[in-house]
């Protein structure tokens, strides 16, 4: 970044902490950007002439006579069609070796959409994964995270979902991505020939952690440009939001703020909500859908990060390793898409809601049978059948390597019903049973 004539330059820093520098300056705007000793910084506090700047990459090695240049503006991103296919860092500077883009400057972290200008989401996003499409259908304008343990293949799943979803633009916000994962995304997008509709803002583990704080706002500013100005369907992937929240806690800790639960800042809910609420459906067709990853520690969803996330997002997709089949599945009990009601049975086949509920209920019966078995009680014939059903259901539907159309998922489920149960046990409305109950099976009716 060059310095321009009207910019104010200072060379006398009065205080340095781990995260901030302070100096005397006048005429400075709140949240204005500055460059301190070549590093990007932002105004976080003004008290009379004392201005405190947060240095995103840390204050190591900054001398008291460092050059401080105020840029006279809040953080911005240059937007335009040329964003497509490009890779940027957390500041919106290219990291793909190509020149910076020319475009209109937009402030990041801008205002919220007026709620009365929104439209109720109603467009189904098929992903081919039955654990999602069948049980937890996604809708444009929705915001939903994967809750996953760090060792689960969530980045692979996200990439897969992104490529299968019918989106005009896919925007990746990578926070604390390992270099390998970053290259993985790059390769997958390249190999799929999808690079021209993908834009990435990436902070890897090699970059300073605090820089991550800028990534979601950068990604969402780009998303708003395409969704509002270009009326496009935009899918935003944010991975890993737990590392984003960790960066927030580092900052608040260094600034001596009183921590609340799990040493997270008291404003965590609002900070996360500001990001996730950018998900929106507009009446003219433009939309922003956010799929995120929140890694858990030891599956604990009561930790402040997943807990606050769950209170904000429209459901969650819970990944779990099913040891019976040795595959990762989307857990039907702990996962929930709160917007699925808006599409299943109306945008998909009318038997969808009933088939979904019946299968989950039978799967729950299997879980009870399993507990019985583990406690050494005898199993009834019904218990045995639910266990067999559960295994097939996991393998043929819940496993994340499934890739079929919704109609096929429904057919598969009906076949499993016919194979393992009587019509009474399945308990679905007769009109659907008459239409879909498999005939070639010799199950008793």
């Amino acid at each position, binding site marked *: 970044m060059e310095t321009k004539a009207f910019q104010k330059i200072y060379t006398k820093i009065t205080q340095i902490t781990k995260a901030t520098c302070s100096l005397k300056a006048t005429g400075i705007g709140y949240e204005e950007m500055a460059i301190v000793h070549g590093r990007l910084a932002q105004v976080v506090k003004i008290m009379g002439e004392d201005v405190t700047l947060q240095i995103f990459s840390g204050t190591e090695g900054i001398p008291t006579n460092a050059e401080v240049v105020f840029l006279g503006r809040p953080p911005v991103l240059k937007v335009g069609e040329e964003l497509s296919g490009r890779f940027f860092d957390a500041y919106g500077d290219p990291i793909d070796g190509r020149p910076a883009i020319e475009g209109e400057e937009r402030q990041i972290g801008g205002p919220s959409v007026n709620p009365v*200008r929104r439209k109720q989401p109603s467009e189904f996003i098929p992903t081919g994964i039955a654990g999602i499409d069948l049980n937890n259908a996604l809708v444009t304008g929705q915001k939903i995270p994967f809750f996953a343990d760090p060792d689960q293949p969530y980045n692979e799943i996200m990439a897969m979902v992104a490529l299968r979803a019918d989106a005009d633009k896919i925007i990746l916000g990578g926070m604390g991505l390992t270099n390998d994962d970053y290259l993985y995304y790059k390769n997958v997008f390249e190999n799929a020939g999808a690079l021209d509709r993908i834009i990435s803002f990436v902070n890897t583990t090699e970059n300073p952690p605090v820089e991550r704080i800028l990534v979601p706002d950068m990604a969402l500013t780009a998303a708003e440009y395409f969704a509002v100005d270009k009326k496009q369907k935009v899918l935003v992937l944010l991975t890993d939001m737990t590392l984003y929240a960790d960066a927030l806690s580092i900052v608040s800790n260094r600034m001596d703020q009183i921590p609340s639960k799990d040493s997270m800042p008291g404003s965590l809910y609002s900070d996360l909500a500001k990001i996730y609420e950018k998900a929106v459906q507009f009446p003219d067709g433009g939309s922003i859908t956010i799929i995120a990853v929140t890694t858990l520690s030891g599956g604990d969803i009561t930790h402040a990060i997943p807990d606050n996330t769950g209170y904000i997002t429209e459901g969650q997709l819970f990944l779990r390793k099913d040891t019976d089949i040795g595959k990762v599945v989307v857990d039907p009990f702990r996962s929930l898409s709160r917007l699925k009601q808006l599409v299943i049975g109306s945008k998909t086949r009318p038997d969808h809601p009933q088939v979904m509920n019946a299968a989950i209920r039978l799967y729950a019966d299997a879980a009870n049978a399993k507990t019985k078995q583990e406690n050494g009680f005898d199993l009834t014939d019904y218990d045995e059948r639910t266990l067999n059903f559960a295994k097939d259901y996991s393998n043929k539907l819940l496993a994340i390597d499934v890739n079929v159309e919704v109609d096929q998922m429904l057919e598969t489920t009906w076949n499993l019903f016919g194979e393992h149960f009587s019509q009474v046990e399945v308990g679905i409305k007769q009109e659907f049973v008459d239409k879909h109950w498999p005939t070639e099976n010799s199950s008793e009716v």
Partner: protein
Amino acid sequence: MEKINKMTKGTVAGIIANLVFVEVDGPVQQNEICYIDLEGTKLMAEVIKVNGTQAYVQVFESTRGLKVNHTVEFTGHMLEVTLGPGILSKNYDGLQNDLDKMDGVFLKRGEHTNPLEDDKKWEYKPIAKVGDVLEAGGWIGEVKENWMPHKIMVPFKFEGKYTVKSVTKAGEYTIHDTMAVVTDEKGKEINLTMIQKWPVKLAVKAYKEKPRPFKLLETGVRVIDTLNPIAEGGTGFIPGPFGTGKTVLQHALSKQAEADMIIVAACGERANEVVEIFTEFPELDDPRTGRKLMERTTIIANTSNMPVAAREASVYTAMTLGEYYRAMGLKVLLLADSTSRWAQALREMSNRMEELPGQDAFPMDLPAIISNFYSRAGFTYLNNGESGSITFIGTVSPAGGNLKEPVTESTKKAARCFYALSQQRADSKRYPAIDALESYSKYAEYPELQDYFRKNIDPDWPEKIALARDILIRSREVSEQINILGDDGVPVEYHNRFWKGEVIDFVICQQDAFDEVDRSASLDRQKYMLNRVLDIYHTNFSFESFEDVGTYFKRMINSMKQMNYAVYESDKYHDSEKELNSIIEERKTA
């Protein structure tokens, strides 16, 4: 209220997020509203602390770009709402800006819109007569707002008695026209229009008395009305982990409850949930009036991405609108989702001010703030002998789903009904996930309300409710034993007892909020169903083995669920009941 002659001015001296320090040149009052001039954009802010000549103000909008020495103008009044016809069916933000009047897709800083319509004509009819002596809240006339009689009143701010000097004759007028002229005790004449203002943080006290609630407020939700009833003018709260059904339950209440007016305060929650109301309510019928639900509803939307400081204002704005309609003799139901977000906003500000933190870094006075707010609800007798009420139900979003946290605990002290949503019930899709036994209604124990039940529902109603709870408790106890000892490790009678509780759970406690019919049950219907399940409880059945018990009761439950899904007393309803009767006959013993 003091009149401040020369308006105080100030300049910005410091900024930390939305906390701004202002150097002032004159007197300021606590909670006074001021406007900060950010190069032409007026940011609204509220004084929250004064120290010498420095006022600490919380800004209701983003402070991005704000600079030291920007000028500030104080207004001399606290945060006020404008009260008058036109509030119904509106979508306001937390500061009563009309969201539909705002330009563009995005909310703009400093954009303030008129909460009412200046030019709209209202059909006016006088009520007061020349010579009448009225106090604040006294009715001078009424206009039709949608279908509701909207009273034009002596402003709440007026102290003492006022004599009506003249009344405007019936006709069509705007909110700014003079509807009556009154003289105060000193003989000074005052023109009254259709509108008045009131500071939201102060309770409106324009009523004669606030008795203990003594009537039932019907909600149509069985587990509330039958097992944990809320009184008209009562208070309740719904705590529950995320995804357990707080919002779905509140939306159900807003659609079905027996109230004249519903105010929904979406406080720090999802925008899409508000959009759902915007989208559905104009289409849905209010079964009691045949009009559209939106006609009796006002929405205060301060969603989680809207300015944090305005969350606090939003619940007070909602309460004040409620108090205004209560003073017209109406039954108001006020819903706030979620009061935890409001408490969190208080926490953010308290931390910024470096106040000594209480538990979980919430401000020390949180319990007092919450109980003060809940105390504004209530049933009131107005000065003219009529009555009006505000029933308030808030949700609480406990961190980690743990009810031992400050917001839940403070609210428990303030609210009289407790509707605990259980994760386990939600996981097993037993909706609404209200745990009937953990939950309670203090009103159920009020002699006033018990009398009301005996007179209006059933002479033995309180005993029947107690018995139903008892059956549920015993069923839960045996279910634990069955889990430990195994199905065949306990006597068959245990299974019988367990399933008699399950009947109550499935038929009374569970209810499908998304089913056209089942979602709301009339009191009559609830009484009939409770009697039916208690009859089953009193009936002896014979079973050979434990395996028969579950299968048999499941069939009974299924017929009764079909009854719940059928229109009351329709053919389908009676068919299912016949089926139930014949199932009962199969195993009934003397």
